[in-house]
């Protein structure tokens, strides 16, 4: 048992419906773990419980030795867990650069009244944030679009901006919710390289949901499989591929079809 990141028998019920049942998982620093499962298996619900959008009905989320269950979303982000969204959620009427700058806000030191009076200390901080945000954009190949409205970007660029924005919160654990959704094979391959690159560069631990099996199998070191809210398998890509339960869940028995 490690102290880095651990989920202890998470349960999420909505009314009478159990979306996730008894979900446990432990991730080591630097690992790249995938979460797969058919549609509606409860994968995003797991992410929502980790990031504080949902408070689990029971169970605990442990992060670097602290119980963060029930903390609010922004507190969890401030502790070093960032996420992207399955359906892109950019601040579409703000510029690409501003989108990234928002992520720095929770670390801003100068108080609001300093900002209102335009004191130099705030201006200095503002310029630093601008510089650093721009660096993130360059890293994700979006530098030339800095002053563009985020809503005007092409789909693939929006996906990358989501990652840039999440990185700018300086997370230790990054949750990617279907990062390859809607991408063509070429883009998906580039994304896989990008994920490995940012993990290396920012010393990240990555936990991702993805439907593209080739992507997941090629990228993740360990995979967890959810079906109907129940965790049915965990192991290396090879183990998962040959697991009869997983095959059944995906190919489906007649009752699922």
């Amino acid at each position: 048992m490690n102290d880095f990141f651990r989920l202890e028998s998470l349960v999420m019920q909505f009314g009478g419906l159990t979306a996730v049942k008894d979900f446990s998982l432990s991730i080591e620093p630097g690992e790249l773990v995938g979460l797969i499962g058919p549609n509606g298996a409860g994968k995003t619900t797991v992410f929502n419980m980790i990031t504080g959008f949902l408070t689990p009905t029971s169970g605990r989320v442990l992060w670097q030795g602290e119980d963060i269950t029930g903390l609010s979303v922004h507190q969890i982000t401030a502790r070093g867990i960032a996420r992207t969204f399955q359906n892109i959620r950019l601040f579409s009427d703000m510029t690409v650069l501003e989108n990234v700058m928002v992520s720095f806000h929770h670390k801003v030191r100068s108080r609001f009244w300093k900002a209102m009076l335009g004191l130099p200390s705030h201006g200095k901080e503002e310029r630093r944030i601008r510089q650093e945000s721009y660096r993130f954009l360059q890293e994700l190949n979006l530098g030339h679009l800095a002053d563009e409205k985020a809503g005007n970007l092409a789909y693939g660029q929006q996906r990358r901006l989501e990652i840039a924005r999440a990185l700018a919160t300086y997370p230790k654990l990054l949750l990617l919710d279907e990062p390859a959704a809607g991408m063509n094979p070429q883009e998906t391959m580039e994304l896989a390289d990008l994920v490995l690159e940012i993990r290396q560069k920012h010393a990240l631990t990555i936990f991702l949901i993805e439907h593209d099996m080739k992507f997941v199998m090629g990228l993740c070191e360990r995979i967890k499989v959810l079906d109907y809210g129940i965790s049915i398998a965990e192991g290396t890509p090879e183990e998962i591929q040959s697991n009869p339960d997983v095959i059944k869940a995906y190919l489906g028995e007649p009752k699922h079809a």
Partner: protein
Amino acid sequence: MTWKGKDMDTSKRNLYCNLAALCLLAVVLYLFDQYGTEYQIRILNNMAVFITLAVSYNLVNGMCGLLHLGPNAFITIGAYTSALLTMSPMEKQMSFIIEPLIWPFSVLQAPFFVSLIAGGVMATIFAFIISFPVFRVRGDYLAIVTLGFGEVIRVLCNALQGVTNGPLGLKGLQPYTNLWWSWGIAVFTIIVITKLVNSSYGRAMKAIREDEIAAKAMGVDPFRHLMLAFLVSAFFCGVAGGLMAHLITTISPTLFTFFLTFNLLIIIVVGGLGSTTGAVIGAALFAWGGEALRVVESPMNFGAFTIPGIPGMRMVLFSVILMVVIIFARRGIMGRNEFSWNWLFTKLGLNAK
């Protein structure tokens, strides 16, 4: 390429331009102060008060994307607080004939400036208290709850005769509000709110407006930032309430109904929700146009026959304008764009590349 270089080039020029614009405004105000008619001065004063109100109201509705319908509550509180502080104990004793004014208002008296600040502070305190129920909800509910607080304040104004003198209101206030006060505060409000909007805090507010869920995930605490906008807005609305009281010199609960909120809403919608420049333009148009439109309510002479004035016609026009703008030109005059010297210089072809 870095951002720093570009900033430095223009920031000095912008500073000079701003100073020049301020001087120009001062000259214009001086000229009106000396040679303007009473009517012109009244319109200019109204304009400045409405600019202060609209710019601070827009901070909540335009920048944060909430539909807050209770600024009239803050204006009321500011107006009464400020008025009670500038009246002398003697005047107060004479005005409060139904029920005597409660202590400490009965003995306190303060200079105009202090009374304005006090008005702002009282409005802010009230905003702080109500922000807890208000920000539990969003959307239509927030609209109706803020509207409700506006109504509650109006009811209290009528009922708490020991503080507000009830429906009789406060009369005979000193006309302290002159062009220098009203425009000074309007300019200060514009500067401070623009700084706030362009800061990291303002960015967080806009992020909440664009997508509250994503903003939270990026570490922004919605409650804290919405409250910040709400309180700042309340403060300036309170101050503007004080200005208004000492401009009209008579205040009563009927002055601060939902009607006032409706006017502010038209101003910021027509100007462009989310644009401070738009709020200023909208307020100026309203103060000037509102006076000009009085024509439609006064009797008209067509040589041989006369059409009697029609009360309510102005509001019909205003309602139609509001609906037409929101249905056909939702972005208003400015959209979410702001005036900037860069834009002006580029337009004039003066921008050095």
